[in-house]
Every structure is written in structure tokens, then in C-alpha cells.
């Protein structure tokens, strides 16, 4: 994984609560066996009209949205299906962080594993960001766990220490778990399995 660096970006605002992963990428696109090429299908059913043309009113299609790296979303973003295709599609489109008051558990875990930073802010900061003028930027500093609002307010956000370490250093979790093979073997020896699914 490439290390997560500090950056600043304008915002794309999606003022909806409970955006589910079926909206982030509809199920019919999950027949792929690859991780790639999902950016085209990000928010597909909101983004394209019945004929498959981009809907000009959807925020992702507006010229000023191009190159933006931060999505500002409503409460409980990423609920529903566990599909990791959701953070894959978001990062492939160019997002590096999503800001909300809360995230669904599985989406949050999937995002952290794909260098997409879920930033939880309190309701007043959330409201301030939604009210911010178009085109203004936020600064994101992961080592210090701070978000600087366009108004200059520096807001701390929570990230668990391990995820932060993995993101900042580019550490891959599987590599970390593999190093613990002796402990895993000890657990297995002490806890014999009650099933053999192959039988």
C-alpha cells in the first residue's frame, strides 16, 4: 500500500443521509472478477440517465467536481452491503477521504484497507462544511488527525492507532497478520476444529 500523505482539496457535497453501497456501486456491476475499472460505475444510477448519458445535475458530473478528492456526505455513509467494490470505486474515481458524522462499520473497515480515509466530524463541523462556499478547500493531516475547515478551524478526528500506522507507513495488514503465524499455530493446536468442511 502506498503511504497516505497530507493533502488539501475542494469538497464534493452529497447532502443525503444513509447513502448505501448499492448506490455507491449497484449490484449488477459486481459480476466482475477484477478490482479495476469501477470508477465509471461509481454512483451509476444517480450519475447517468436512462440512455446512459451523464446527468448534468448530479454533482459528480459538474465541471468543478473534477479533480476533487474529498466527499462530504450525510450521516451513516456506506450502509448496507459489505462490497469492497464501494471503496474501490470511490478511490479509482479519485477520492482519498469521505467526511461524515458516522460511517457503517463494514464500509469504514473496507475504506481503511484501501487508503480511503473516513473522517468523522461532530454535527456542527459537518453543518459548517455543508454551508461552506463552493470552491473552498479543506486540509487533511492524518499524522496529526486534523481537518482544517475553509474557515480555518482545526478539528481533530478519530482514527484508531493501528489503522493510522498502516495508512501513514503504507503497511499492509495481511503482512502483519502473517508475521503472527506462530501464535496462530499455537491457538490451532489448543483448539482443534469441530468440523471438516471438505468431508
Amino acid at each position, binding site marked *: 500500500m502506498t503511504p497516505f500523505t497530507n493533502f488539501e482539496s475542494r469538497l464534493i457535497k452529497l*447532502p*443525503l*443521509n*444513509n447513502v*448505501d453501497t*448499492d*448506490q455507491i456501486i*449497484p*449490484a*449488477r456491476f*459486481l*459480476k*466482475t*472478477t*477484477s*478490482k479495476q475499472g469501477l470508477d465509471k460505475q461509481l454512483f451509476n*444510477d444517480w450519475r447517468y440517465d*436512462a440512455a446512459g448519458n451523464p446527468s448534468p445535475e448530479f454533482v459528480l458530473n459538474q465541471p468543478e467536481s473534477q479533480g476533487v478528492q474529498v466527499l462530504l456526505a*450525510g*450521516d*451513516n455513509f456506506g*450502509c*448496507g*452491503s*459489505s*462490497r*469492497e467494490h464501494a471503496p474501490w470505486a470511490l478511490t479509482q474515481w479519485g477520492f482519498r477521504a469521505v467526511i461524515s458524522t*458516522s460511517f*457503517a*462499520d*463494514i464500509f469504514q*473497515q*473496507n475504506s481503511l*484497507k*484501501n487508503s480511503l480515509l473516513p473522517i468523522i466530524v461532530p454535527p456542527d463541523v459537518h453543518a459548517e462544511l455543508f454551508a461552506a462556499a463552493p470552491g473552498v478547500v479543506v486540509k487533511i493531516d492524518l499524522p496529526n488527525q486534523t481537518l482544517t475547515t475553509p474557515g480555518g478551524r482545526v478539528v481533530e478526528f478519530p482514527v*484508531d*492507532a*493501528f489503522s493510522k*500506522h498502516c495508512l501513514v507507513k503504507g503497511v499492509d*495488514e*495481511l503482512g*502483519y*497478520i*502473517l508475521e*503472527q*503465524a506462530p*501464535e*496462530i499455530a499455537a*491457538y*490451532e493446536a489448543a*483448539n482443534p*476444529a*469441530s*468440523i*471438516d*468442511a*471438505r*468431508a
Partner: protein
Amino acid sequence: MPRTIIEKLWDSHIVHERPGAPTLLFIDLHLVHEVTSPQAFQGLRERGLKVRRPDLTIATADHSIPTSDRSLPIVDKIALKQLDQLETNCGEFGIRCLGVHSSQQGIVHVIGPELGLTQPGMTVVCGDSHTATHGAFGALAFGIGTSEVEQVLATQCLLQRKSKTFQVQVEGRLGAGVSAKDIILALIARIGIGGGTGSVFEYTGSTIRALGMDERMTVCNMSIEGGSRAGLVAPDDITFEYLAGRPHAPKGAAWDAAIARWKQLPTDEGAAYDRCLSIDADTLEPMITYGTNPGMGVSINAPLPEPSQVADPMARDSITKALAYMGLEGGKPLLGHPIDVVFIGSCTNSRISDLRTAAGLLKGRKVSDKVRVMVVPGSQEVKRQAIAEGLPEIFRAAGCEWREPGCSMCIAMNGDQLSPGQYSVSTSNRNFEGRQGKGGRTFLASPLTAAASAITGVVTDVRTLL
């Protein structure tokens, strides 16, 4: 210190804990399906890794599999490639695969329990958010993403942070026409779809104890729709009776030892939960959803909310947007609303007891000629049992389609789907925009409500037909 079953399950699966890192937790059963696994197997290949415990891993084909005659070729080339890939991956990595032509194929959350693989005291994962279904056995079962699927394949472990404990106590007797599905829809309507975020539910109380295993699975299945990654029911004699004699259940002396172990699992007297909520089963009514998330549910006779009466602007916009998508007006009940399709199936309600319940109402009746009614058993085993009981004849005589097992119109990946604008009453678990087909509109309800609505062609209170 007295512990909840959730804490007991957690404690007994700790491989180890290191400062500054999440707990390394051992996984007893890993279920795999075609949609969320190909990229994980590819990851193993790229790193030159093996599957650590093929004996604790099983795969099936369910999401993108057609529910038409299995002897016909699969026409969707992309789905076919994905299904072939699953067989190839399982062959290469030594995993048993209950694929397209297996006599044990079925929805991943239906086959685990029916094969006796899901057992009390286990940790169970799957790259699928409805893995909580297996919690009905007193297992800690939760959905994971594809990166985690790869981690479990390679190490049989996951890095996890402890969840909060959330007791959902259901007491009393369900009235006629009210079922397990209505309990869980009522819970989600009450706490909202983010209400359980960060928690594991334990469902307790006399109503839950009185439910059979199929119904307990219905309740646990939709825990994720309340935001909770896992939900469970402590095992009891009903659990043990279900498991006895299943292909992978322990036999002989091992069975007796297992029962003794499983009896230690229930929450200790005096153990504290982080949160508690109680539901009065006596006053529950059949539930139905009207909106575009499972928390947007009401009693079948109740009026839909009026957006103008919702104070929070973003919540108001969400309801306004949902009602607009659904083509509905606030303030009126859904009763009598015309429908186009009824879907009886999914990992929530495709087990034998669900099919018996629906068939019981449909027997000797006809479904409305305006409605397409699909009945999709959860597995080949459910299908065999249904045939043995004569259920397909009842469904066909009533005018329903009786199809092959799979996820089908729950997720609409396999061609079973609504057309834009169509309405369904569905026994599945999600009513998100486009979930059952682009532009489709879903009312989630119980098998009884679905069967009743199939007969009349409009959203119906089943109690008027009992």
C-alpha cells in the same frame, strides 16, 4: 465477572492481543461465494500464499446464478465467467465448492446451517453482510470485505475491535399473522438503520425463545439493517434439536461433549450490556417498508410519514427523496397500493418454514393475474424438502413461479429483476433504490404479507385473509 454470550465468544477466539493493535481473532468457519472472492484469491496468487484452513472453508454459488432450469447454459457471459472462476479458484486452493450443479448448492446463509457447519460457539465470517444469520445458533457471525476474505483465506484470522453489546429483549406472544420478520422490521424502524452501528445484538426474551431456528435466522439475518454487524441468539434445546443428525454436526460422544460446551454459552446471570431495548410482541402488527432503506417501515395499517412534519432538514430530504423515488405520498397508508411482483425468497425468508407459511395461505387460492409471483427456495435441500411436502404443486396451482435456488431478485444480479417503476412486495432484506432492478420499488414484508398481497394484487393486511 458475569459475561454476555457476546463476550464469551470474543474471549474464546483471541489468538493474541498486542498493544496498539486490534485483537487477532480466530475464525472457525469461512463461507465463500462468487461475488466477493475472486479478487481475494487473486491476491493470494500474487503473494504466493495458500489457503491456511481449507477444512474450515466452504464455497457456494448463489448471487449471480440463474434461477431458471439448471440444465440450460448460462447466457450471461460475465456471470458465467465469475461462476467458473469460483470453481477454478476452489479447485486450485483445495476448497470444497457447492457450485452451479451441486445437489447442495444454495444461498450461502442457508447452506451453512442446513449442513450443520454453523454451530454454537463459533466465529463465522463471509464476504457478505448478512452473515449475521448464523448468529441464530449462538455464533459470532459477521460480514467482511474482500481484503478481509483474503486475510481469512491466508491466515484464518482477522484483526478485530471489540463491539459494544446491545440486548434486544422481545417478550410476549406474536398475534396471528405476525412473524419473525415483523419483529426485526419493527426493531429497525425503531432504532433506524444506523442504530446498532458498533454493536452486536443479542436477541433475548420469551418471544425469541419460542421461535424455531428458521425464524431466529430471519431475525438475526437483518441485524445489519439495524447497523449491527452481528446479532445472535443463545443456543437452547431448539438449537440442539435442529443440529442433531445434520451432516457436519458432531456425532456420538463428540455430540454429548459439544452439548455440554454449548450449554456454557448463554449470557451469565447479572451480566451487563452496553445498551438494552425491549419490544412488546403482544402489540406488534405486520410490518412493511415504504421507503428506500429498511428503517423506513411502518405497521401495515399505519400512515406513511409526512415529510413536512420532520424537523431535521437532511432527514426530511431523505424521506422526501424516498417517497418521490417510490412514487408515494406521505400521510396515507400503503394498504391497497397496487403491486406488480411478489418475491418470496432470499437468505431472510427462503427456508422451509417460510415456504410452508406462504403455501399455507396460498393453498386453494389463486394469485392476482396482475402480479408475477416468484418463489425461490434458498437451497437445493430446501427445494427437496418442499417437493417432499408437495409445496411446489400448491404454488403452481396458485399461479406462482417455482424456481431454482439462489439470491435471485433479492439483489437482481442474475436477470431476475423488476422493470423501472414496478412495485414488489418482497420477503428479502433490502429496499435500497434499484436493489431489485434499476428503477424498481420494493416493499419489504413477511412471507405471509407477501402471499396475501400476491392473492389480492395490492398491499394487504394478511389478517383479513386468515
